[in-house]
């Protein structure tokens, strides 16, 4: 199936060495390991696939219920259920290698050592084109505040991962912070090749009848169009404060949404929750971007990046 599909050079992007035929990636945790959506989406036409967050060992994840719908979005507390980095390399990568698409491994750890360990195993795995480092997980040692909420911890995670691999390292930022630019600059200085944002906003939903949380885990991560204004704001702020590429996401449903993120300063985008409500969303976004370029007589999608007039 490794066939080159008709691609549009005007859409191609290079995110710190990660070359993609277009700026449209799938967001971690919303597209499984690629195969789940292969009946809907021609994976060859995607820019990149960011796989479900990988930890050193397989993880059970949180007890159900794990998801709940909210106004214009959803909460999830999947708890990073995953098959572990080894099984990923052995069982999932071979499938992904059959496609002409960038594969980005999203990684996750509960300690610096775990981050480093996962990165090390992926460093030499054939068919992995970049790492995306999820720093939103609770830092157990630091009282549960996430690595990503502390500039020092986020920088240290970045350094440890960079030390293990030559692959481009994208650090994925959490929005649950007072000033996201502080974290972005900290990971940039620690060597991050790019940043991606936003991860989910922490939220809670309550079942009034039982007076229990709708999620067994109590809180969960909010995603979908409801968070788009917050995501756009943060992408715009971060794009102005760092000089490395920025990957934007949060509530993207359409080409219009994706292009807004690029105007705000994103060099590429990830599409998450939208896949659930429209499995064809990524394809429609790629086509919509092509149309936009044509209608606006633009030679390259890069021309719109960061062009917000304020």
């Amino acid at each position, binding site marked *: 199936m490794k066939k080159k599909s008709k691609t549009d050079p005007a859409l191609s992007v290079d995110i710190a060495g990660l070359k993609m035929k277009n700026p449209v990636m799938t967001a971690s945790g919303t597209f499984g390991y690629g195969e789940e*959506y292969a*009946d809907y989406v021609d994976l060859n036409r995607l820019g990149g696939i960011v796989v*479900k967050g990988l930890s050193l060992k397989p993880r*059970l994840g949180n007890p*159900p219920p*794990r998801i709940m719908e909210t106004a214009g979005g959803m909460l*999830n507390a999947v708890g990073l259920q995953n098959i572990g980095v080894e099984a990923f390399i052995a069982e999932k990568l071979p499938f992904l290698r059959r496609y002409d698409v960038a594969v980005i491994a999203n990684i996750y750890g509960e300690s610096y050592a775990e981050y480093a360990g996962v990165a090390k195993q992926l460093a030499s795995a054939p068919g992995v084109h970049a790492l995306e480092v999820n720093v939103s997980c609770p830092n157990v040692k630091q009282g549960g505040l996430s690595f990503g909420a502390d500039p020092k911890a986020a920088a240290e995670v970045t350094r440890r991962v960079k030390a293990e691999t030559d692959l481009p390292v994208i650090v994925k930022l959490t929005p649950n912070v007072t000033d996201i630019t502080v974290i972005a600059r900290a990971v940039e200085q620690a060597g991050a090749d790019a940043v991606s944002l936003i991860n989910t906003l922490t939220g809670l939903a309550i079942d009034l009848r039982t007076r229990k949380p709708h999620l067994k885990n109590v809180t969960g991560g909010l995603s979908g169009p409801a968070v788009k204004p917050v995501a756009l704001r943060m992408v715009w702020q971060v794009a102005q404060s760092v000089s490395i590429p920025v990957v934007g996401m949060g509530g993207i449903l359409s080409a219009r949404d994706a292009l807004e993120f690029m105007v705000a300063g994103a060099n590429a985008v990830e599409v998450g929750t939208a896949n659930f*409500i429209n499995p064809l969303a990524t394809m429609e976004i790629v086509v919509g971007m092509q149309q936009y370029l044509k209608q606006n007589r633009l030679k390259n999608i890069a021309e719109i990046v960061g062009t917000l007039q304020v």
Partner: protein
Amino acid sequence: MAGNIYIGEVFRNDEIRRDFFLMKIRLPVQFDRPRPGQFVMARIAGLQDPFLSRPFSIYAYGRGRGGCAIELLYRVAGKGTRILAGLIRGSQVEISGPLGTGYTVDPTKKNIVLIAGGIGIAPLSLLARELRRTNSRAADAVTVYLGARTGEALVGLEELKASCGNVIFCTDDGTLGEKTLVTKAFRRDLKKYDPADTALYACGPKPMIRSLAGLLKDEYVCQVSLEERMACGVGACAGCVVAVKDAAGNKAYRRVCADGPVFNLKDILWE
């Protein structure tokens, strides 16, 4: 592997009982013949409130020249089903499917027993009809236990009587059929069913499934269809899991949409 996505056209959408609707949807011929127990994700294109698609078992399936049709039997439970209930003939509905694994049918078994609680009749009714369609002997050998809270909620009975040899029905309040729980009605007959020569299929509310689990010795094989809230419906989000014993006997979470919705009752962990 997952199914695919289609624009369906509502052909009928009738309130067959108070709050229970039967919707017939015309689909392009590409829509795969579903296995009993498979489901679809339905939504109204462009509508973002409710936000997620909703899962429904395929209750009936037919194929003609140039197209096919499915039927959904559904209960108005909240916002999404209320909007579905308001669709008129000719409305469009986005259908993704058929999804999930479905029931594995073993027609060599002497006894085929279906146990349905409430709207749980939906996937089992397709199973009964498929048994009749593919093998009429098996259909005559089918026994169905069908229960509901009240007579008004006991839907699908006529259909079942037409396709199955033996239908036992009951309601919690005795307004239709016997006044008993469906699991109790089944338990009474349990000794008639030799574990080695019986295939059990069940679908219904969690308490029903749970009490079945308590009832059945390990020798019985019972395939149950489960319900969980879903987001993707195709196995990509890990949102819809249920706790099971894996092959090694360890606890694991399995996705109802992709690893199910049909599971072996024995594997389910009740925590």
